[in-house]
């Protein structure tokens, strides 16, 4: 891990992130959800629930999330709901993979459009904080398990 600098801290907690975390988009319950999943980060105790409606056209019509967590996990969840609404499951899958690569600081995030890459970029600061990667990925892992049919209640989504 490279030493943390004020710069990397400011990048991590940049305006967009704090805005998402303080004013999360699509927060709350979702009636008539077709898919739900519960995620849990055993390292810190944070929980999240993701609800979504998968339309007849194969696209994600609505996403909402509930739960409490740190700024990173809340912002990440909020950003995710923004980004994945309107996508097909396959498109969502590709975005999720891109996101996971990005926050782990791995090379070769490919196959994403420039717009998506730019939007995701606000989360890139996490990669300088390996112990926070699980915070950033919790919502996305939970989304994944929702799309895969929802996790059973005694087996929360893994965070990595």
């Amino acid at each position, binding site marked *: 891990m490279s030493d943390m600098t004020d710069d990397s801290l400011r990048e991590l907690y940049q305006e967009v992130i704090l805005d998402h975390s303080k004013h999360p988009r699509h927060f709350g319950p979702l009636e008539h959800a077709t898919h739900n999943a519960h995620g849990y980060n055993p390292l810190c105790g944070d929980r999240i629930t993701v609800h979504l409606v998968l339309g007849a056209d194969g696209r994600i019509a609505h996403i909402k999330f509930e739960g*409490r967590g740190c700024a990173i996990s809340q912002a990440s969840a909020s950003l995710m709901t923004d980004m994945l609404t309107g996508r097909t499951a396959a498109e969502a899958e590709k975005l999720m993979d891109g996101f996971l690569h990005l926050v782990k600081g791995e090379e070769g995030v490919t196959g994403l459009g420039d717009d998506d890459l730019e939007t995701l970029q606000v989360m890139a600061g996490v990669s300088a904080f390996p112990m926070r990667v699980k915070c950033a990925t919790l919502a996305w892992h939970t989304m994944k398990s929702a799309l895969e049919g929802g996790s059973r209640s005694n087996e929360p989504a893994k965070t990595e």
Partner: protein
Amino acid sequence: MSFIPPIDDFPILAKPVNGKRLAYLDSAASAQKPKAVLDAMTEFATTDYSNVHRGVHHLAARATERYEAARVDVAHFLNAKSSDEIIFTKGGTESLNLVSYAFLSPRISAGDEIVLTKMEHHSNIVPWHFMRERKRAVLKWVDVREDGSVNPPAVAAAITPKTKLVAISHMSNVLGTITPLKEIIQIAHAKGVPVVVDGCQGAVHETVDVQDLDADFYAFTGHKLYGPTGIGVLYGKRAHLKTMRPFQGGGEMIGEVTEDKITYAEPPHRFEAGTPPIIEAVGLAAAIKYLKQFDRAAIKAHELDLYQYARDQVRRLKWVRVIGEAPDKGAILSFETTAMHAHDVATILDGEGVAVRAGHHCAQILMERFNVASTTRASFGLYNTREDVDALIVGLEKARSILV
């Protein structure tokens, strides 16, 4: 203060973190190790090392002497009646599991009860959950008061004729609460119930006298006591140990092994299967010796001074809620911060060189009890100073400025 923190004994504290002076406020998770401990281990490994017990050669004799001398040192540290009552394990967690597997499991049946408090660490919870899952035992949870203190009559009320064990920590790793152990043990014994004490924090901050406490079992862990990882201790009354079946099986713990019969060694060896943590035992003895050079009451006063200094300043920050203010408590400060999550706070503190823990601290039941998902925890060791506290406060203000 009469106690001067021996900072120079701890080389790691001199290394800057993120370009800042390190303020290590995470000793409740694990303490840093003085040079004396590391040197003792290296010296032993380069002078007297060998496997123990089974050899007749010089190094085996020396290694055995030093390993068994460490057992005697631990016995004195806890004021056990005999070193035969000291079992070396791999850590505090294994010590508690040993009680679960070797003592309780053969004695408990469906419907029998285990009494424990809501402030226990997972290591003093999960082994009893196993008894629930595997033996259909019942867990009886004793609540703590709003200030985090334990109420002995509440423990008394939880004990019934079906109670087979009381499991309780000497000191909470989240709240800092120090349990009125002696009183609780008397209550339990009056009802014929044995008590296992999780002393992983207690042994570090309190002076332990297992005979005076009359504890049936007392568990602690090496790495929080300024000693190495990979070693822990279980004290058990000889009368209990004698009647217990083994936990793990292997070398050293047997009497005779034939194809269809087996007998076991006497305690403590019955419970030390395989090659024990030999170098670590020497390191633990060195840690105990290191501590002994100080007046432990003075260390405690020093740590409590830091705690109070920190708490008083933190209280002045209106957006901080301290959790755990029992009248009798050790130097652990847990708090919740309004509109800031503990993980974010800890990350920003880290940027200032201040190492704290954030999360549930392996105490999910307690988090539930206080209705928080996680707390930020600053915990103090003998090497901490007011400078560390000042850095904590500066860091908290900075977190506020960045996050809110």
